[in-house]
């Protein structure tokens, strides 16, 4: 196991380097001279040239990338062009909010999705199963920002039960988490159902039944354990999708997270913040996937670790 973990960590290096190169390239692929943007409109040619020198834009590209990489590893992303604050300080607290939102939503989607999927599989082809699957299909097909607006209209404006905006109190958390978690729940439900059906049709389940075991024990003790293995693999992907889906949810509910920040700063052409936010999200996602991978290998003993 240890050897496997180490090897997977080494495999991450090229991906992480690639991610950093792409994010680094973002600024250089963008039309317009960043020094000009930073020096402000109407700055003299001399001021722009000074700024270019200061930003290191005259260095060879490889040196610039080296500096970027070093800064990124030491979490020094420079200062924001818009607010003048240190980027890492600006991103930090917001990132915590987004991770919270994504985490709660992942938990909700797992909880609802697993129950719905298991019920669907156990009661396959019944009205209940069909209804759950139709709801899941709708859940998959709804833009989360629209669901958010609808929930807000109903529960905040019409009924006045829950606050429409913000993040922090338990009441504020409910609507955004439902908004973001619904699509995930739909995915997990469909995945769980088909995985359960696959497992239930296998010989060892028939053996268990033939032994005269109660149906409940067959389903929950024998089938579920194996049916969950493929579901684990989508959890990491789900978390990533929810992390980025938070961009939309945060905009709807005016949540002060990293998603809202990215959109705001793309419009303001505040590249250090956009770059750092994108980079941090991608790196977190890569590591979450590693964790999922390890869990998967751990759960599925049949897979050879080497």
């Amino acid at each position: 196991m240890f050897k496997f973990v180490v090897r997977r960590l080494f495999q991450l290096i090229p991906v992480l380097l690639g991610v950093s190169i792409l994010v680094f390239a973002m600024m250089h692929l963008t039309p317009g001279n960043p020094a000009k943007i930073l020096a402000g409109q109407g700055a003299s040619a001399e001021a722009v040239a000074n700024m270019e020198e200061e930003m290191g834009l005259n260095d060879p590209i490889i040196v610039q990338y080296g500096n970027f990489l070093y800064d990124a590893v030491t979490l020094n992303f420079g200062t924001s062009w818009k607010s003048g604050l240190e980027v890492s300080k600006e991103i930090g607290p917001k990132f915590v909010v987004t991770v919270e939102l994504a985490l709660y939503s992942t938990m909700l989607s797992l909880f609802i999705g697993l129950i719905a999927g298991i019920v669907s599989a156990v009661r396959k082809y019944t009205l209940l199963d069909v209804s759950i699957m139709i709801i899941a299909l709708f859940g998959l097909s709804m833009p989360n920002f629209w669901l958010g607006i609808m929930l807000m209209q109903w529960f905040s404006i019409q009924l006045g039960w829950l606050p429409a905006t913000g993040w922090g109190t338990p009441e504020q958390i409910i609507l955004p988490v439902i908004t973001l978690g619904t699509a995930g729940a739909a995915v997990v439900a469909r995945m769980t159902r088909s995985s359960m059906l696959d497992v239930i049709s296998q010989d060892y389940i028939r053996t268990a039944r033939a032994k005269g075991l109660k149906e409940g024990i067959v389903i929950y003790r024998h089938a579920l354990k194996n049916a969950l293995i493929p579901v684990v693999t989508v959890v990491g992907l789900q978390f990533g999708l929810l992390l980025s889906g938070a961009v939309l949810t945060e905009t709807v509910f005016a949540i002060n997270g990293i998603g809202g920040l990215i959109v705001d700063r793309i419009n303001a052409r505040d590249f250090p913040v956009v770059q750092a936010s994108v980079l941090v999200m991608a790196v977190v996602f890569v590591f979450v996937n590693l964790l999922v991978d390890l869990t998967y290998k751990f759960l599925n003993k049949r897979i050879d670790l080497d």
Partner: protein
Amino acid sequence: MASGHSSTEEMAPKKIKKERPAVRAFKDFYHRLKKNKAALVGGYLIIFLILVATIGPFLTTDGVNEVNYTQKLESPSTENWFGTDHQGRDIFTRIIHGTGYTLLVGFLSVLMGGIVGTLLGIVSGYYGGKIDTVIMRFMDILLAFPGILLALAIISILGGNFINVIIAVAIFSIPTFARIVRGSTLATRELEYVDAVKALGAKDSRIIFKHILPNVLSPLIVQSTLQIATAILTASGLSFLGLGAQPPSPEWGAMLNDGRNYMLDYGYIALFPGLAIVLAVLAFNIFGDGLRDALDPKSKK
């Protein structure tokens, strides 16, 4: 879909044999698709959307950007079926005109992303070795930007407008296609008939396009359909954020963005464009699910 599964079960004894000519295979596929009620509904919905997009704009009586401040924020009525927005524009008319944008984003971005992704996937799977490693590592890197994040990063470079959204969503779908096609190519490459064709001295390009491509076609078609649904969702999300199609464009996500300040008090402003998005995405999702049931030999058991 449950109804889909029950119908595929009934057809269990039928199995496509590889030797069947293409026409026969297509007929067989069509036959199975026809039995899948859900897929048919999806197919009809897509045809309906295409008709709305092509003919619809000629049938509406109001102009798409016809501003009328004396009629602003009116609730749905017999005159304005879906009500009017904050500038007095008829929402129904705008939704009809927006259908084209939505389908265009879906089809074009998936076409572009699909072609590039398929080529990369086939080359990767067919040649294997170093080429495979390089291409797939690059795909891994693109996949490290989850969901809409990659599209956001691309938009932040290119700037937000309708064309750039198509490009961003196309790039965003490349890795998915590459992975799926690579997998099918790997499986096909090992088949005996490919060895036979190789032994006959066929060129790589001929083997790839004539013999491998047809075999990866069915997962490709299924993925394309489902990817159109994702593309529509992503593009409308970008427009909602103000980073895609810009107001006064009647793109549905842009309509939601445009009416954002009014939608909490006038619910229908958000309701109808959103329902239109749900309908379009649902159509492609249902159709894709049905196609998978009809095409996937595994689901025939």
